[in-house]
């Protein structure tokens, strides 16, 4: 019977090929007729009849040879070609390449009648991939078909575009497809939306200007078109949820209608209305409502409705319920919904259906961090799943346990993971789990011994597939040490001892990475173990070197260890032997090491000096500019050598020479850039800093530590003593299962099952008891009073291995630097300030703020290098920077064309007389370009206003806090939330101890953009003490343009910089009638976007700007036939896209 299905399925392409033009799609008779008459049918039948792979291969090769002859024969008709194409598709589907037919597929799509074209397009979409060169040949056909009056042809073209289209040819079809969004047929509109979705995926910046049209598609009267647009929205909202909050109510309404069965019955699946559409909508809502109470508020009703409607027992409703649960736990919580969702999860987890159980575990894993109580409710089920025969269920359970691990249950959980690892053979599963174990071990290790043994297990089980981060992190942890020197010593000593013991078992094979770790530790810390003769260690390492399974990379590690050990021992027989042996080794690297070692051994003093003990963390000072070579270079130049050119410059030059016509803008400036980029323009690629590496890492761990749980309102089922059995379990004698101490389950002997304490006088079966005891150890610390936070604060205190945070040092240094700068600023102050001093405090702070910005530059590498320069030098450098800043400030907005809100001096006075509490800017800020003062939020007692001030080196947010009451407000605290997009210079909070009645206080925050985005929301809250503590929330939208400043430069500089930048984005945009000339267009860009106009030559213009603090972006514009070709370049990949979007916006507006 199964072969009947098979025949049906394989007849599918055959059907396509066999229809006579005009026959309806459903009108095909029995498949028997089709396969009997078609050659495809007979091909399939003969393949199915074969028994071995080898025969199949022979048959298909035969078939392909004959097909090749047919398709390349000039006499082959299109009709026959179509038939051949179908067979080619089949062969390729079975895994036999038929690339000779690709070009014929494209031809068929070009030349055939409707059906032949259809097959041609189908073949193209199956054969080719996005970057295939032949795809370009299809573009013309697609353009032609898109303009066809035959709807079927338009449909086919749109279909192929939505499947496969070359990225760089999008502009050729984009206007045509945009037009199709207004087509009267819904199927065309739907396919157009799908094509645009494809474009959005492969080139998002090219469709930025049609976002409004997507909105129209969302409101389309046809549900299919609306559903298609949801794909685009899901993607866009994933990337930037803040931009689409206003659509929340639309999505809610749509979901309500879908759930309420308002769609036609065609959308039903087993009487559930449009389930996949519901899932899509629920996901969108989840993304929109995340961390946003106001938006979440809008969707509570519909989520409730969805939960209620999905109560029928069918797989598809479970899928919807699962999505509901995820959404409910993603958005701001509402207790009723949480309760229902929890019930839902319970139903899943307890279900006898295995698929449902899996779904339940997955849901539980997702919600567990927010609601650990749920894990406690289902602990017995979790334990059962841990021993489930299905390894997939087991693995999902381990994933769950991983999320609830804390200092008290880590030993048991890691043991369970190691057990699973030993059974597993799948590489990906091993890599994943090993990473998790290493992370947990580092975070929660109860003792040194346990930690080292667990890591030993990780390295030996994980083998060489473990991610290289794991050994690196482990070694770094050992090397950097912790806050306690005694602990360091213990840990390192234990590591050395355990490795020596492992190496004792002579002929055991260890993975290479493990051997590398061992040799590093032995080399570095061998002397910590006093009772072991270094000679013994050397002998062991020596014997390792002779083993054949040891790779040459590992041998290099071992040699390094030998060298280190040798430097601390007086002459050693083994070392001499080793040198002797390796000096004639075939491995050149080893020979090199041996020679080095030999020479070093001759000068012990030098050797000691070179390899000091425990100096692995000392930063090396690297002369990144390679200045010691300057003399050599100068000599070379003196002898007539050509000056050094960086790689990209050489390439550009080569390219420009090859071209007959020079399309590169300002190619002329090559000459000057070449001559001046001799010695000075050189930048060494070795400018790496050890410091930046480590500080980055500790920032990451710091981040992990702050993940805390919301535990308000959680019932405490668990005490410190562990598992409290529920009533029904307790029927017999109320025996309290004893907590198994963590120590007894120590992972020392990896192979042993966890030892459980015998339980006395229990009415429960042995098995149940075991499970309960396992539960009591697994869920220890969850919900107990001590461990209120699973991964949060409590753990930061108990965490054993706290890395010494290097970031602190860095911060200290940067503070020092800014102090320096402050003092420098006050020296300059009186000279440079022309503003009369009337508000001393704010005045001072404003100016220091302005000057503080430069040293906090986000460029960490530069910073770290800077900190290694001597203080005096740094000071003079800062002074230089300062005066440069000061000078540029006046010139920054000097372009008189720039539109900046500069209120007349009388304006604030007028408004002030009407309502005394509308704040105005302090005088010295009044002079700078700034926005209007707008209200943020207010309550009865207090109002917040905001004004943006655009200074030359940052965006200042001035927040005014007005006390509207007649009594003083105390302890007003203003906090901005951290976001990934923005960086708040200095602290994110401001405190006002007291705000007098009817008065206004203000504070200012300097902002930087960390991650480029068109716009994003910065939210914050203000709390104050009136009769009771009150909190107000507010949000500010900051756009990219708030952080863009003009960048002054000469045409020559522009040319140089242009060549050195790699990220570029090109786009043509239409110019409206009023800006037909280039200069008019450039004026628009200059005025609206604060770009600096560098030069205009003929029909080309160049502009420059920078993203604060100093990321340049260059723009080259050219006009041709009513189009403006924009070409951006910048070192930052996202910046050109963002600016392009702004350009498109202002050009459309004007």
């Amino acid at each position: 019977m199964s072969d009947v299905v098979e025949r049906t399925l394989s007849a599918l392409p055959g059907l396509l090929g066999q229809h006579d033009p005009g026959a309806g799609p459903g009108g095909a008779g029995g498949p028997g007729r089709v396969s009997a008459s078609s050659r495809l049918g007979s091909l399939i039948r003969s393949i199915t009849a074969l028994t071995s792979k080898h025969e199949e291969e022979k048959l298909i090769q035969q078939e392909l040879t004959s097909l090749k002859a047919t398709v390349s024969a000039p006499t082959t008709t299109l009709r026959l070609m179509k038939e051949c194409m179908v067979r080619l598709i089949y062969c390729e589907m079975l895994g036999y390449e038929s690339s000779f037919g690709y070009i014929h597929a494209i031809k068929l799509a070009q030349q055939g009648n409707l059906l032949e074209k259809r097959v041609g397009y189908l073949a193209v979409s199956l054969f080719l991939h996005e970057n295939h060169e032949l795809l370009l040949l299809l573009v013309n056909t697609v353009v032609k078909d898109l303009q066809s009056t035959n709807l079927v042809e338009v449909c086919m073209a749109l279909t192929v575009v939505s499947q496969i289209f070359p990225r760089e040819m999008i502009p050729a079809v984009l206007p045509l497809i945009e037009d199709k969004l207004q087509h009267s047929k819904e199927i065309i509109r739907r396919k157009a939306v799908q094509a645009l979705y494809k474009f959005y995926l492969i080139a998002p910046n090219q469709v930025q200007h049609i976002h409004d049209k997507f909105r129209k598609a969302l409101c389309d009267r046809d549900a299919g078109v609306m559903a298609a647009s949801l794909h685009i929205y899901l993607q866009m909202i994933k990337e930037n949820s803040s931009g689409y909050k206003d659509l929340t109510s639309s999505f809610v309404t749509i979901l309500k209608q879908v759930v309420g069965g308002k769609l036609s019955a065609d959308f039903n699946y087993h009487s559930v209305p449009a389930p996949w559409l519901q899932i899509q909508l629920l996901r969108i809502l989840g993304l929109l409502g995340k961390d946003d109470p106001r938006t979440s508020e809008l969707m509570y009703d519909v989520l409730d409705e969805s939960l209620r409607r999905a109560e029928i027992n069918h797989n598809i409703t479970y899928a919807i319920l699962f999505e509901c649960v995820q959404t409910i736990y993603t958005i701001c919580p509402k207790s009723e919904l949480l309760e229902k969702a929890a019930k839902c999860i319970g139903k899943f987890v307890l279900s006898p259906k295995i698929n449902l159980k899996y779904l339940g575990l997955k849901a539980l894993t997702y919600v567990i961090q927010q609601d650990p109580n749920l894990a406690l409710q289902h602990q017995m089920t979790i334990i059962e799943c841990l021993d489930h025969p299905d390894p997939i269920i087991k693995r999902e359970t381990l994933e769950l346990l991983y999320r609830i691990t804390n200092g008290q249950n880590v030993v048991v959980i890691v043991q369970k993971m190691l057990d699973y690892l030993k059974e597993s053979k799948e590489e990906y599963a091993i890599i994943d789990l090993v990473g998790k174990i290493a992370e947990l071990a580092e975070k929660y290790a109860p003792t040194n011994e346990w930690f080292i043994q667990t890591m030993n297990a990780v390295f030996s089980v994980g083998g060489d597939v473990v991610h290289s981060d794991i050994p690196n992190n482990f070694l770094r942890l050992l090397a950097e040490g912790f806050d306690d020197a005694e602990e360091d010593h213990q840990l390192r000593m234990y590591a050395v001892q355990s490795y020596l013991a492992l190496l004792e078992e002579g002929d055991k094979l260890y993975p290479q990475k493990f051997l590398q770790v061992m040799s590093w530790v032995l080399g570095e810390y061998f002397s910590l173990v006093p009772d072991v003769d270094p000679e013994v260690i050397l002998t062991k390492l020596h014997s390792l070197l002779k083993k054949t399974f040891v790779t040459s990379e590992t041998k290099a590690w071992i040699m390094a260890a030998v060298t280190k050990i040798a430097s601390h021992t007086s002459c050693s027989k083994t070392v001499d032997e080793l040198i002797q042996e390796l000096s004639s080794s075939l491995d050149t690297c080893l020979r090199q090491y041996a020679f080095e070692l030999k020479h070093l051994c001759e000068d012990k003093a030098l050797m000691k000096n070179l390899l000091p003990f425990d100096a692995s963390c000392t930063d090396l000072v690297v002369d990144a500019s390679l200045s010691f070579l300057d003399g050599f270079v100068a000599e070379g130049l003196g002898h007539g050598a050509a000056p050094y050119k960086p790689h990209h410059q050489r390439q550009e030059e080569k390219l420009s020479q090859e071209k007959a016509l020079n399309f590169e803008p300002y190619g002329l400036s090559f000459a000057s850039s070449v001559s001046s980029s001799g010695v000075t323009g050189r930048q060494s690629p070795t400018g790496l800093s050890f410091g930046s590496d480590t500080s980055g890492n500790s920032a990451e761990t710091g981040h992990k530590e702050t993940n805390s749980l919301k535990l308000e309102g959680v019932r405490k089922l668990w005490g410190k003593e562990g598992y409290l059995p529920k009533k029904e379990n307790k029927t017999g004698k109320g025996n309290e299962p004893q907590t198994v101490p963590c120590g007894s389950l120590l992972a020392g002997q990896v192979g042993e099952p966890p030892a459980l304490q015998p339980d006395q006088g229990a009415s429960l079966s042995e098995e149940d008891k075991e499970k309960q005891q396992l539960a009591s150890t697994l869920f220890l610390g969850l919900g107990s009073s001590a461990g209120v936070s699973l991964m949060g604060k409590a753990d930061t205190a108990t965490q054993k291995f706290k890395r010494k945070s290097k970031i602190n040092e860095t911060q200290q240094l940067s503070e020092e630097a800014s102090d320096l700068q402050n003092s420098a600023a006050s020296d300059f102050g009186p000279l440079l300030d022309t503003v009369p001093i009337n508000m001393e405090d704010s005045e001072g702070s404003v100016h220091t703020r302005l000057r503080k910005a430069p040293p906090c530059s986000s460029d960490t590498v530069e910073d770290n290098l800077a900190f290694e320069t001597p203080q005096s030098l740094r000071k003079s450098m800062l002074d230089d920077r300062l005066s440069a800043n000061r000078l540029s400030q006046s010139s920054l907005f000097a372009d008189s064309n720039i539109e900046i809100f500069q209120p007349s001096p009388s304006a604030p006075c007028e408004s002030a007389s009407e309502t005394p509490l509308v704040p105005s800017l302090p005088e010295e800020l009044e002079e700078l370009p700034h926005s209007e003062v707008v209200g943020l939020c207010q309550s009865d007692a207090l109002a917040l206003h905001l004004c943006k001030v655009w200074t030359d080196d940052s965006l200042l947010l001035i927040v005014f806090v007005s006390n509207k009451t007649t009594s003083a407000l105390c302890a007003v605290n203003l906090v901005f939330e951290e976001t990934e997009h923005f960086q708040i210079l200095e602290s994110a909070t401001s405190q006002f101890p007291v705000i007098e009645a009817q008065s206004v206080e203000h504070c200012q925050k300097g902002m930087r953009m960390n991650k480029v985005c068109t716009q994003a929301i910065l939210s914050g809250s203000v709390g104050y003490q009136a009769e009771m503590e009150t909190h107000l929330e507010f949000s500010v939208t900051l756009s990219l343009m708030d952080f863009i400043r003009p960048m002054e430069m000469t045409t020559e500089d522009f040319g140089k910089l242009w060549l050195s930048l790699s990220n570029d984005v090109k786009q043509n945009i239409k110019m409206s009638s009023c800006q037909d000339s280039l200069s008019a267009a450039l004026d628009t860009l200059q005025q609206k976007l604060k770009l600096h106009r560098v030069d205009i030559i003929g029909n080309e213009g160049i502009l420059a700007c920078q993203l604060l603090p100093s990321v340049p972006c260059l723009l080259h514009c050219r006009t041709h036939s009513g189009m403006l070709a924009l070409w951006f370049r910048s070192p930052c990949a996202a910046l050109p896209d963002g600016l392009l979007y702004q350009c498109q916006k202002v050009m459309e507006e004007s």
Partner: protein
Amino acid sequence: MIKFFLMVNKQGQTRLSRYYEHVEINKRTMLEAEVIKNCLSRSKDECSFIEYKDFKLVYRQYAALFIVVGIDQTENEMAVYELIHNFVEVLDKYFSRVVSETLNLL
């Protein structure tokens, strides 16, 4: 996101394959062989979702025929599981006689 859609019989022969992400042709055969090996090794009372490499497989068996869908981590497994059935139902509607006969026999 759906990465690929496969129909494979119990002998491991591919009956239909459609890739939504480009996979080189010589790698496809290997992938398909491993995928079907993974599916065949599972019993009826094990769940229909498999973690495979960095993505997931959702499979459903119709007589001797396996339909396997490769999805990424963001997808809802149960929804895809039902999508497979939906596909089979569509086939049933399109070629009314044949598939329904087969399905009745299941």
